[in-house]
């Protein structure tokens, strides 16, 4: 049975780890620790009914992890626990964890917890012959049985190595102890001090081989970071990386950052950038859940853009987390007020939350963890990090980049729209970020100074904006008392015109426009005049024509009259001459009679 299980384990760990991240509960029952993040890394918790070794150097949080495992087990999972302490007394332990909000005495009273302080004093003990550690077994068994404990923590069992001189006996007895714990069916946590070149000083990892968790407390450049790694976990998949963890007023939280995949949901919804014209440039605003980088040299208005975004989020009734690493919240609020952004009001309404801390206070991992925690608690749909470049004070570029990748992944997985500001220095290439995160960014705005005519003016470019048609034009960026405004810049033979040059150009254009208008009017007038002249001419012609035609008609009438008269005269003449007609006949009786 056991061999079969081992085989399965090997196969699982050999090829399963990368292929599938889904937990397979059916193969191993797990006891959830309740420690934030640890259950994610271990896909459910520690192996139920088996011992787990937590090792690490002094002060790395072994005891605390053990205590939290017990306290959460008792409070959240209904599993009573026994803490066998070899180093600290009950009172000391209770005091130490009281700062984390755990009331051990209360749990002890409710019979959910037993703390048994085992004291081994080497100087009192003389060895004379064969012995075993049955006393320890009996004592632990008694404690387990008296409250029906399901969880046991032995902290730090290696202390007995200093109490008893015969290491061989101890090793044999420890082996027996862990076997015995398995038969008792308790989920045990054994803590061990980190040894030279080995996980523990006395090689406990040889005996406790089901699950080994290594805690580490490193100091780099005077920054301390706690990290956790699951060294081995038989029969289960587990995250294999080093994960940073934090001990704060709520206990331990582990950050399983690198377990995130690239499978976050995307949104077609747009959120306002807070600047109307910028929204128009982007075709409606930023995508919800996208990451926006605002980079620029000092004083180009990066924070103002961030402030606008924060305000727009609040205005839309959404919470916003503003992580400031350069200025204090009051200073930011004052500065934003000067450009007409009232952040203080939103803070009062509870829609805006500031988190200001100098980066130098913690290591990067801690910052990441803190932001992570804040987001988990506050659940904001919008986050501002102002500026990200300050984190370079506590890590090199690669580390900061890796931190930001993890942060961006986390933000995306939560569908949070985030605005990062990044300071570029004068000498740097404008279109590069100090941290090299540009490829992770969805929308990248560059603010830069445009120097001309002895002025510095701000210009805004949309360097890229994934998945949206965006304007390719530079805009002049003005900070007014009513917020940031984007203006068209003039492009001409002289290049980009901004500031007073733009104003001059504007005046020039206005003058030109007036001239053009005047010219048009003049031409219109001329046309009108011509038309009038022509009309007059036409009228005159028409009048003369009328006269002429009247004269002609009169002439014609006269002519006609004259013709008629002549005809009549001819007839009279003929009558008088008795003329016949051409045919030689008498014209008519009438004619004769007449005559």
């Amino acid at each position: 049975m056991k061999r079969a299980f081992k085989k399965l384990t090997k196969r699982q760990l050999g090829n399963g780890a990368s292929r599938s991240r889904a937990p397979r509960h059916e193969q191993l029952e797990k006891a959830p620790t309740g420690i934030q993040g640890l259950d994610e890394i271990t896909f459910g918790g520690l192996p139920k009914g088996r011992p787990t070794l937590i090792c690490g150097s002094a002060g790395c949080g072994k005891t605390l992890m053990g205590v939290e495992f017990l306290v959460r087990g008792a409070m959240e999972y209904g599993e009573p626990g026994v803490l066998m302490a070899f180093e600290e007394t009950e009172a000391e332990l209770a005091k130490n964890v009281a700062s984390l909000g755990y009331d051990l005495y209360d749990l002890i009273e409710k019979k959910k917890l037993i703390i048994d302080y085992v004291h081994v004093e080497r100087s009192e003990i003389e060895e004379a012959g064969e012995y075993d550690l049955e006393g320890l077994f009996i004592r632990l068994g008694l404690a387990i049985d008296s409250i029906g404990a399901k969880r046991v923590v032995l902290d730090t069992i290696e202390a007995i190595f200093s109490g008893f001189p015969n290491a061989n006996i101890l090793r044999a007895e420890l082996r027996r102890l862990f076997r015995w714990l398995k038969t008792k069916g308790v989920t045990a946590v054994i803590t061990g001090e980190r040894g030279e070149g080995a996980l523990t000083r006395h090689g406990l990892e040889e005996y406790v081989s089901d699950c080994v968790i290594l805690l580490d407390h490193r100091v780099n450049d005077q920054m301390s970071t706690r990290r956790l790694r699951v060294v081995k976990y038989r029969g289960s998949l587990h995250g294999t990386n080093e994960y940073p963890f934090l001990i704060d007023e709520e206990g331990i939280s582990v950050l399983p950052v690198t377990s995130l995949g690239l499978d976050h949901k995307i949104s077609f919804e747009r959120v306002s950038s807070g600047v109307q014209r910028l929204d128009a440039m982007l075709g409606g605003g930023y995508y919800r859940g996208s990451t926006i980088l605002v980079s620029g040299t000092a004083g180009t208005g990066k924070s103002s853009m961030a402030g606008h975004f924060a305000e727009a989020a609040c205005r839309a009734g959404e919470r916003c987390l503003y992580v400031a690493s350069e200025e204090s919240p009051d200073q930011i609020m004052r500065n934003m007020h000067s450009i007409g952004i009232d952040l203080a009001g939103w803070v009062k309404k509870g829609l805006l939350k500031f988190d200001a801390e100098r980066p130098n206070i913690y290591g990067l991992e801690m910052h990441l963890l803190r932001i992570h925690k804040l987001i988990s608690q506050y659940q904001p749909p919008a986050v501002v990090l102002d500026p990200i470049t300050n984190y370079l004070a506590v890590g090199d570029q690669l580390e900061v980049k890796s931190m930001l990748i993890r942060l961006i992944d986390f933000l995306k997985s939560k569908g949070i729209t985030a605005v990062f500001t990044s300071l570029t220095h004068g000498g740097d290439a404008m279109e590069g970020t100090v941290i090299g995160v540009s490829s992770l960014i969805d929308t990248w705005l560059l603010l830069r100074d445009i120097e001309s005519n002895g002025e510095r003016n701000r210009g805004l470019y949309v360097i890229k904006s994934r998945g949206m048609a965006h304007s390719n034009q530079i805009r002049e960026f003005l900070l007014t008392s009513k917020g940031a405004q984007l203006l068209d810049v003039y492009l001409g033979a002289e290049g980009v015109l901004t500031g007073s040059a733009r104003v001059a150009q504007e005046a020039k254009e206005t003058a030109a426009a007036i001239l053009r208008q005047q010219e048009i009017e003049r031409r219109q007038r001329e046309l009108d005049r011509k038309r009038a002249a022509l009309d007059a001419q036409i009228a005159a012609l028409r009048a003369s024509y009328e006269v002429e035609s009247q004269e002609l008609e009169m002439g014609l009438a006269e002519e006609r009259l004259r013709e008629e008269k002549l005809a009549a005269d001819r007839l009279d003449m003929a009558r008088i001459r008795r003329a016949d007609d051409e045919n030689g006949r008498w014209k008519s009786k009438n004619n004769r009679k007449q005559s």
Partner: protein
Amino acid sequence: MHAAKEKTAKSSDEIWELRLYVAGQTPKSLAAFANLKKICTEYLDGKYRIDVIDLLENPQLGRGDQILAIPTLVRNLPEPIKKIIGDLSNTEKVLVGLDIRPRSNP
């Protein structure tokens, strides 16, 4: 075998209070008791009392004396408290441990 009391009358004011912790009648426990009795008879001349505590029967008693190893012999009196673990087969070490024989003396 537990709660066995051995007393031999001899002229001295000090009584040695010894407690032997065992867990059932294992060979080691039995050997320890036999060895202890032999040493006491030989060196303490009746001025001693032995309490044998079986932790299988009274497990809660092990806590007070911080008993981990079995068998453990505890010298409650004379003070200070001394603990000797093992089946007490090494008489020399028992004598040294109980301060019957000074450490420096072979």
